[in-house]
């Protein structure tokens, strides 16, 4: 088997030419060049096979072989207000940007009053209005040299969210970026691309939600780049609710300068093949970085989390807690890279990955990967894979609780460890409820209210 699948490269090259014709006429040279370079790089790389070390356990050949439709903005399907409501987290008071099939939809969006100088808009608009800042930041934090999917994203990037927080800006309400896939019969591909620039001492909470409105097959290939200047504080949530037949590959790259704090909670419920690459570079002293995740796989789902924490400077702390629940024939992959560079003395890095297997056919491949070049650091990692605690099962049963319900209670308790860390009540409630639904039980009503 080859290292790469290239049989569909021509589809992407042809689609790119179409794309360029449609939107690139007015683009600046740097952007044109960047897109071209990325496409060329993709053409060289092709799609990775399981021979590729980074893709050993995740076979994406169904993605590589699919003839995805690349649409323009006018091809975006229709989405009803109800679909938006389903993912508005019980009417959560937020600045909401809705994207349908990758394109910003102003009618469905609602951006409230923002502090002076703050910009919250679509990337498509920012390409017209904020070219200098884009040139400075876009594609600087998510490298595409070794990553086919980021290369594709960079070639086709056209829309998504653009958030700019000037120095000292504080946004009280969360910013919700909702990416909806419409109910289209043909398999289509979208490239949501988000850029968040957080100035010194700025503060914001950002929720990214990716959701399907059907059970169609489609592919979301999204990239989010975050720049945290000194003392910036960004709280980030990513909720993945794609359709049960969808492919979702996401890359989140964060560049953190001194004393900044980035906290991320990723929640994966949907999708058929899911791969997340969250990563942070701790690029100044005194940085705090947190990557937490919860994934629930059932049926034939494959959920792969490849995290990277790069300690480049001294005196930084990183925290990682990933928890997975796998039932049916679901598969999970966790690969946690931590780099501690020569200069990064007094690093404190902590990584924990726990997986709960509920069936005999569910599997998990887990690998911590620590590369430490400094000598005065504290790095801990732990991976546990287990089944339900039989002592606890028995204990619950002896109190009159039947086996299935006992199983659900314990599974729920396992997952709630992550959910309870969600600071937004509406989102926390949604996730609690979602776990219950995912466990296909309505018997547990009330567990989160006591």
């Amino acid at each position, binding site marked *: 088997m080859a290292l790469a699948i290239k049989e569909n490269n021509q589809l992407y090259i042809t689609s790119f030419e179409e794309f360029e014709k449609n939107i690139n006429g007015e683009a600046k040279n740097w952007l044109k060049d960047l897109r071209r370079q990325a496409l060329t790089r993709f053409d060289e790389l092709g799609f990775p096979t399981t021979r590729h070390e980074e893709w050993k356990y995740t076979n994406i050949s169904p993605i590589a072989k699919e003839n995805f439709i690349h649409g323009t903005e006018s091809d975006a399907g229709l989405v009803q207000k109800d679909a938006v409501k389903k993912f508005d987290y019980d009417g959560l008071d937020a600045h909401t940007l809705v994207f349908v099939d990758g394109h910003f939809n102003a009618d469905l969006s609602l951006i409230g009053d923002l502090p002076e100088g703050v910009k919250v808009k679509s990337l498509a608009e920012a390409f017209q209005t904020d070219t200098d800042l884009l040139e400075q930041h876009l594609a600087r934090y998510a490298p595409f040299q070794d990553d086919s999917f980021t290369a594709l994203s960079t070639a086709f990037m056209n829309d998504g969210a653009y958030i700019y927080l000037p120095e000292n800006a504080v946004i009280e309400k969360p910013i919700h970026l909702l990416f909806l896939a419409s109910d289209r019969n043909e398999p289509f591909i979208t490239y949501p691309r988000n850029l968040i620039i957080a100035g010194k001492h700025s503060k914001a909470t950002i929720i990214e939600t990716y959701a399907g409105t059907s059970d169609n097959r489609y592919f979301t290939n999204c990239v989010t780049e975050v720049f945290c200047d000194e003392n910036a504080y960004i709280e980030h949530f990513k909720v993945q609710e794609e359709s049960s037949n969808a492919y979702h590959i996401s890359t989140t790259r964060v560049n953190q300068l001194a004393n900044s704090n980035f906290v991320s909670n990723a929640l994966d419920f949907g999708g058929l093949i899911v791969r997340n690459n969250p990563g942070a570079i701790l690029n100044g002293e005194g940085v705090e970085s947190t990557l937490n995740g919860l994934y629930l796989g059932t049926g034939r789902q494959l959920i792969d989390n490849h995290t990277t924490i790069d300690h480049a400077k001294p005196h930084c702390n990183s925290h990682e807690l990933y928890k997975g629940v796998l039932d049916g024939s679901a598969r999970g992959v966790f690969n946690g890279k931590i780099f501690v560079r020569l200069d990064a003395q007094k690093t404190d890095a902590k990584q924990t990955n726990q997986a709960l297997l509920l069936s005999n056919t569910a599997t998990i491949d887990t690998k911590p990967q620590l590369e430490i070049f400094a000598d005065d650091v504290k790095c801990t990692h732990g991976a546990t894979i287990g089944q339900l605690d039989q002592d606890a099962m028995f204990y619950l049963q002896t109190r*009159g*609780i039947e086996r299935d319900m006992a199983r659900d209670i314990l599974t729920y308790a396992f997952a709630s460890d992550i959910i309870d860390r969600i600071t937004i009540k509406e989102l926390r409630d949604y996730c609690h409820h979602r776990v219950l639904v995912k466990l296909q039980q309505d018997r547990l009503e009330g567990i989160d209210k006591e």
Partner: protein
Amino acid sequence: MLEIKNLHVEVEGTEILKGVNLNIKAGEVHAIMGPNGSGKSTLAQVISGRDVYDVTNGEISYLGKDLLDMEPDERAREGVFMAFQYPVEIPGVTNSYFLKTGLNEIRKHHGLETLDAADFLKFIKEKAKLLDIEPDMLNRSVNEGFSGGEKKRNEILQMAVLEPKLAIMDETDSGLDIDALRIVADGVNRLRNEDRAIIIVTHYQRLLNYIVPDYIHILLNGKIVKSGDKQLAFELEEKGYDQIKADYSSIKTKLEETV
């Protein structure tokens, strides 16, 4: 209420119980005493339905039903309760939710209305007060970070909430200081009534100063070798298990009297 006949139990191929006979009526308190390894905890666990034990022979009838044929949760709903020697910690599940769910499952089984959160809270707070349990303990995860005494009191609280017909206290006294022991014993004594049977499994005579049993059985090497009234505990205190063991092996009298 509970009739155990010729019960033989193995765990991983080793025979632990070698023909136990026991007959317990409603309203009675029985103590089962024995040294470590005599099989007394095994007996308690088999009654409550732990599946790691293989019953190779014998039967247990509970209120006329075949107990061994029932799942642990069915037994619980029918009124069997065991206070664990080592209560299990369940992170992420609050004590209050745990108790309410168990209680409501049992109530549903008996065709009673389930209690909503407010009614339950009122109900549980009263019960907790009697056992000197801080309300805070109800909001904490089940047994997580509880001290030994708190765990045991929590077991008694569960018993008070679930109101079983047959309660088995598996070494409830182990690891308790005298104050905690008194609270636990008071809790048990309060639940003593003519409809309820209680089995106290213990190594030491100490607990029996506070909960006075109607009958005492001495379990040695998987068999009940001696049964009697509360005087037996004092005899045991005086002689120790070794003497009883020696008596048993030398005399070889028929000891498995039914009571």
